[in-house]
Each structure stands twice: as structure tokens, then as C-alpha cells.
């Protein structure tokens, strides 16, 4: 049984905070369950969306092609690649894959200092305002990003976190004070974001 701890998500139907489990090392069966339910949901949304509404059906979701089972299988039990999941209401609400080796800061004040790199982070499609008019839970992405910052702290990296963001998610990372260092030509021309030590401390306070 993977270690887990209780966190809170906001149930958007009632506005109340509800308990959820942050699972600290997910296995491929768990990731397969996420793939199954997330892809089924996107397919259903796409099927029932009017032609003019396809832009919010999941077809435009930039990570709709991600297959978490493959990602989790590829890293196995490597300590350098923590995989985290959020479980609530009997469903996988979000998943994240981190890399804790070989990634270093790019911000001037933390240049060459080790960071935790967020390889992949996604909330279930039913939690995304880009996909559904009324998301089920709020706070999934925030809880996962917070976990990445906490792991960075536990590893001695002082909360430093870096990632390349899909365009659809850039506003989210800006909101938490991550600084954009511009387009990375070596990473599919995605913008690179990094959280500094002070921002990280304020974020998890």
C-alpha cells in the first residue's frame, strides 16, 4: 500500500472542502484506472458537444493524448521519479510525475542549484474549466504543485521547482508566482517556469 495523507479539495457542487488522499507513489494499475476514466470522460464530452462547442470538449485539451500508465511503467520504482496521485470520491482526480535528479535552477539567484522538475502534471478532465462548464473539484493542481514544492524541501532543494508549461496552463503557474524564463527551444518551444526559494516558502506556508 502506497503511503498517503489527507488533503482538502473544494467540492464545487456544494462549495465545501472535502477530504482527499494524496498518494505518494502510484503504480501502473492506478495510472491505468486514471487513463480509463479520464479518456472515457473526454470521449463522452466530445461525442455530446455541438460542432461549435468542440473547443471545450477535450479535443483542444493539450494533454488529452497523455497515457499515464505508460509514464508510470517507464519509471518503475525509481526513487528519482516520484509519482503522485490524488484520490477523492472514488476517482483519480489528478496525477503528477516528478524528476529529482539532474535538473538545476535557471533563475540567476539559483543557477545550477538542484531543483525538482515537474515532468507531467494533470487534473482529471472533469475538474478543468476548459473542458466542463461546472468542474467537480477545485484545488487539484494546486495540491499537486504544493506537493512538488514540499518534496523539493524534503530533498534539501529549498522548495525550488521548475517545469515546462503547456500554453493552457501558463496562467496557473503565473498565479503561484513561478517566473517564466521564456521559450525553451530544446523543449518543444514550451515556456519554462521556475519557483524560487522565497516564493516556495510563501506558497507552502
Amino acid at each position: 500500500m502506497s503511503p498517503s495523507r489527507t488533503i482538502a479539495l473544494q467540492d464545487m457542487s456544494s462549495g465545501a472542502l472535502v477530504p482527499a488522499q494524496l498518494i505518494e507513489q502510484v503504480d501502473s494499475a492506478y495510472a491505468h484506472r486514471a487513463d480509463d476514466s479520464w479518456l472515457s470522460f473526454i470521449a463522452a464530452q466530445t461525442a455530446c458537444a455541438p460542432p461549435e462547442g468542440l473547443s471545450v470538449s477535450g479535443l483542444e485539451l493539450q494533454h488529452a493524448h497523455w497515457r499515464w500508465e505508460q509514464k508510470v511503467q517507464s519509471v518503475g520504482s525509481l526513487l528519482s521519479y516520484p509519482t503522485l496521485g490524488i484520490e477523492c470520491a472514488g476517482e483519480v482526480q489528478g496525477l503528477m510525475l516528478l524528476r529529482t535528479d539532474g535538473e538545476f535552477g535557471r533563475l540567476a539567484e539559483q543557477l545550477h542549484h538542484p531543483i525538482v522538475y515537474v515532468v507531467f502534471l494533470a487534473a482529471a478532465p472533469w475538474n478543468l474549466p476548459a473542458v466542463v462548464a461546472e468542474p467537480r473539484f477545485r484545488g487539484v493542481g494546486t495540491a499537486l504543485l504544493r506537493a512538488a514544492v514540499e518534496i523539493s524541501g524534503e530533498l534539501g532543494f529549498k522548495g525550488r521547482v521548475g517545469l515546462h508549461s503547456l500554453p493552457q496552463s501558463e496562467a496557473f503557474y503565473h498565479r503561484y508566482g513561478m517566473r517564466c524564463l521564456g521559450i525553451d527551444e530544446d523543449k518543444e518551444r514550451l515556456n519554462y517556469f521556475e519557483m524560487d526559494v522565497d516564493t516556495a516558502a510563501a506558497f507552502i506556508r
Partner: protein
Amino acid sequence: MTTKRTMTLNLTDAEMSVLEQLSIQKDITKTAVLRQALRLYQLIDTRLRGGERLFFEDEIAKEKKELVVL
């Protein structure tokens, strides 16, 4: 987050000196250096056992040297 267990580690003066230098260079604690080393060792060992090989390349000398680990 994850529960941790404590162990005693016996190092020589030379080993401790290297550990202290790495701790300063990398701006992480000595414990963090050792945990990082464990993760890296597992990563390299897993890939070597999977049939991959690890090389250091000297671009100036145009030399490649294979790194062999225990």
C-alpha cells in the same frame, strides 16, 4: 510526507570531507547529498542492468570512456 528511518553512518575523514564539500557546492544538506546519491545510484544501476551503457565523453580529446559501477 513519507515516514523516514534513522541510521548511523560511519565515514572516514576523507569521505566526510568530500561529503561536506558537495554539501556546500550543491547548497544542500549532507543528508540530502547522500539521499541524492542513492537515487542516482539506483537510476544508473537500473539502466545498466537493462542493457544500457554509461559513458563520459571528452569533446576536446575526442575520447569516450565507459563508466563501470559496482
